[in-house]
């Protein structure tokens, strides 16, 4: 599918910004063209829960007006997609759940507000695992999302809709959230760029909560340069988020062109153990060799408690989820059961009907580990092990600038393949979960293919070192073409 200006959909945000600035096309024209593409092709993917065509065209017209009068923010007129976990005023915000199928958000999340103020045009809300609980986008009430590289495969999750949409060139960028790998794993499985910033870097206000000590908002794009542009707008202190960190936001774009000569890259031996697909290991090692050819120095580092990160996560995250999701009571908003016998029946049936299987499982796991007699053995123990894991990273970052390894243990798996076994599914996040437990920034960038499916290189850095991740990724992308590959059905 082409348009009068060539393949606008294939361009990065930075390229589109230049086109808009030079008057080659208007934001309304760009928005119309992408909405047309979504209308024609999303039936294949199911990447959207809601397409906000009217709102998008109105925002695009405002952006064009602002541009004509010499105004407009750094994202003026540029199209994005929001994961349907971000509250968007006046728009249905479902979090992928039947529970919120009827919820029209009365307010904007801080992320939504900041991007709108910078002039971004929101094309719609993307599909996701229910309440962000899942690694395959199969727990969504609105059906699974398909991977643009192979429609029989999962795009990963929970930000599967955002990742699939960016990979399919529906938009150059989409927001995501990451509690255990939910931005980075789908980015790896779809050949896109995904960054999860430091805990507290981006406001969680208006982002529907899953596990509050782990949740963090970020972006999925095709280039590190675009990720830097968006993150610069999204990051920063917010009074309305009690764990927001009050630290100045650096100019992420400013340092992208600096060389990575002398950058110390940590390699974790256990990352390349039997759990990793052998061909993926080859791709990741090639990517690390490319970083070395650009002047990076590799150093072996040890994360002795790495194996405990998944079990630690599956105590801490469900515990926080069971507490957060207690707000869904069928009274003030959300699904309400018909003809309740009494208040208890109203609560139990509204929740029993409104939540899907995986969400119920996590609520019950969390309820169990927090219940009388089990709290010390599970929750307290897990929080102690979490400290050990965080200390391992601290020690490693005394010696290296980034840790590089695989993002996911294999390329995209087939839809339905892992859905019946929660533990196999949980192990998909083995390489990404550590960054959430320790609150560190992490990023996945495309680094090649295995059997025509994309593979991701995972980079983790010290707290607030997003600049290092973005610079390292940008430099890698200046010397490789993996991020330019487009799935055949979407060219």
């Amino acid at each position, binding site marked *: 599918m082409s348009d009068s200006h060539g393949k606008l959909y294939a361009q990065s945000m930075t390229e589109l910004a230049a086109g808009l600035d030079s008057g080659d096309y208007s934001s309304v024209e760009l928005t119309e063209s992408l909405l047309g593409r979504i209308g024609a092709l999303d039936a294949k993917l199911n990447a959207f829960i809601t397409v906000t065509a009217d709102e998008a065209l109105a925002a695009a017209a405002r952006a064009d007006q602002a541009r004509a009068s010499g105004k407009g923010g750094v994202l003026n007129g540029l199209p994005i997609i929001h994961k349907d976990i971000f509250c968007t005023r006046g728009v249905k915000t479902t979090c992928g759940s039947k529970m919120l199928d009827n919820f029209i958000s009365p307010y904007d999340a801080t992320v939504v507000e900041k991007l709108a103020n910078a002039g971004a045009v929101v094309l719609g809300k993307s599909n996701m695992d229910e309440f962000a609980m899942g690694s395959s986008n199969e727990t969504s009430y609105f059906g699974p999302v398909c991977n643009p590289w192979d429609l029989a495969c999962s795009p990963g999750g929970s930000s599967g809709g955002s990742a699939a949409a960016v990979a399919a060139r529906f938009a150059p960028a989409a927001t995501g959230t990451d509690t255990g790998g939910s931005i980075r794993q789908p980015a790896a499985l779809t050949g896109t760029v995904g960054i999860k910033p430091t805990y507290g870097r981006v406001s969680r206000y208006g982002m529907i909560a899953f596990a509050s000590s782990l949740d963090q908002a970020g972006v999925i794009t095709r280039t590190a340069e675009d990720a830097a542009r968006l993150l610069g707008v999204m990051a920063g202190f917010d009074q309305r988020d009690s764990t927001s960190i009050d630290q100045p936001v650096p100019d992420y774009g400013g340092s992208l062109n600096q060389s990575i000569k002398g950058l110390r890259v940590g390699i974790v031996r256990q990352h390349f153990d039997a759990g990793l697909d052998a061909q993926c290991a080859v791709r990741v090692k090639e990517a690390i060799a490319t970083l070395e050819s650009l002047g990076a120095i590799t150093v072996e580092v040890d994360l002795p408690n790495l194996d405990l990160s998944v079990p630690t996560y599956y105590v801490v995250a469900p515990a926080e989820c069971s507490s957060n999701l207690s707000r869904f009571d069928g009274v003030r908003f959300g699904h309400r059961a018909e003809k309740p016998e009494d208040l208890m029946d109203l609560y139990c049936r509204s929740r029993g009907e409104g939540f899907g299987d995986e969400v119920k499982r996590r609520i019950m796991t969390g309820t*169990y580990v927090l219940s009388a007699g089990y709290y010390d053995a599970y929750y307290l123990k897990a929080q102690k092990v979490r400290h050990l894991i965080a200390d391992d990273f601290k020690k490693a970052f005394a010696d290296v600038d980034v840790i590089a390894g695989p993002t996911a243990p294999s390329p995209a798996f087939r839809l339905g393949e892992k859905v019946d076994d929660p533990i196999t599914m949980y192990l998909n996040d083995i390489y990404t979960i550590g960054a959430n437990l320790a609150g560190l920034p992490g990023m996945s960038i495309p680094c090649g293919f295995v059997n025509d499916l994309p593979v991701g290189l995972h980079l983790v850095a010290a707290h607030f070192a997003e600049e290092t991740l973005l610079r390292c990724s940008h430099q890698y992308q200046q010397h490789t073409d993996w991020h330019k590959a487009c799935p055949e059905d979407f060219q």
Partner: protein
Amino acid sequence: MSLSKDQVKHIAMLARLKLTEEEYAESVQKLSKIVDFVDQLSQADTRDVVPMAHPLDVAQRLRPDVVTETNERDHLQQNAAAVSDGLYLVPKVIE
């Protein structure tokens, strides 16, 4: 199975979740697997380790105790299934 059906029923009650018989059977099996999986934490040596409360070493921020929100009751209640005179309606609690 590390969890019994009675235990799962108790957990579901604490979590205010009504499950079908089928869901109970599946939950006993899958929750037991999850509990077995996280049980490996018991092997970790955590003597003298402080539980981690926050990913960054920061204290909870406080704000001045002043009113900052405006009253948006009518707007917010548009998402509720049953309201009357500005109140949320629930089944009768007191006879």
